[in-house]
């Protein structure tokens, strides 16, 4: 849980997780990680919760095509992908395709 032991407002960002991933985070809906790039943020997330790895990234370390990562409300695929800079105070939102209807 080292990933959440710093001051989020100064150095960190908040990652909001979809319900289907919350079983991998012990029920946490939001996790604070270090700012930097999207890739670094996701790596921080996976470091804290290793079960998220197969749900988020492919074996080639790309974001799954059924998962979308938004920086504030913009899909990072339309920014710079995993290299998109993430500034302190910004929010990352992960959405995943859901099956139910």
């Amino acid at each position: 849980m080292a990933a959440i032991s710093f001051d989020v407002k100064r150095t960190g960002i908040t990652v909001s997780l979809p319900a289907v991933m919350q079983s991998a985070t012990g029920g946490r809906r939001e996790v604070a990680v270090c700012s930097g790039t999207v890739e670094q943020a996701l790596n921080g997330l996976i470091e804290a919760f290793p079960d998220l790895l197969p749900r988020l990234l492919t074996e080639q370390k790309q974001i799954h095509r059924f998962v979308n990562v938004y920086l504030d409300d913009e899909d990072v695929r339309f920014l710079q992908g995993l290299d998109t800079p993430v500034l302190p105070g910004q929010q990352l939102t992960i959405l995943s395709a859901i099956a139910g209807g």
Partner: protein
Amino acid sequence: MITENIERSISEPPGSVLTSAELQRYARRVGTLGVVDDDVVEVSNLQRQVSHGQSTLQMAKVDSARQRMADLNPYHQVVDGSDSFTTRYLVNDACFLLHRPYVWGSVFQFHGQASVFCTPAGPCYRRLYPEPPPPQFAPSCEEGGVFGAVCATVASVVHDVVEVRSTRSVPADSHSPVRTISATELAGRLARRRAGEDDAPGKSPPPIHRDGDRRLLQGRHPVRGCGPGSFAGQLRGQPPQGRRARLGERRRTPAPWLLRRRPSAGSRIKPEIEEGVA
């Protein structure tokens, strides 16, 4: 399943039966409206038979009514509340190829997503989620559970979209975001979507690989929806198993279930509420 309420009504005999209420109902897109009438429009009809007008005098009333309804609401709206990725991609592709807006809603436990795709300048569902997730990462309602009120909320959002689209002119370049609904947080988010270059009018379609997709989806969802015990399986003559075989027993269960979750080998989702009593 989020299902659209489809009403059929036959108006007979003619005259003022086709009232403003029925016109309004049609304008609100409640479903199919059938009209049986052997009369023609006369001036004396106009003070009460609001579906006709001066411009349709002497026209058969059925034609006049059809013209008026088409003038009110020419849309045939596709609404998808399916719980199968195969269906979802199929409906999306059909809408894309037919240039019809595709209104969609989906649910999981206490959460939902809704949006509209295939608008003239907007992306299609494949742009949002190009591939379906493997089953263990996208449990069905049966496996993961779903909160009934969330279905109603998502259905309301879907109907809002349908009604807005069918009663107001929507700018061609409007992009509806994905609306997320969460019953646990009493708040939703709007996530912007972008059309790819291929979505622009006149450009090539997004990657739709008809047979390839079918194989892909069948491989990813080998049992659900079509295997033994499923409804589709029963249609093919396979004996009912599991849930449907236990349906009688389930009906005798005294306490109502707020959220039911059934264990599945493929599901790694742990229930937040095991057996809440409503």
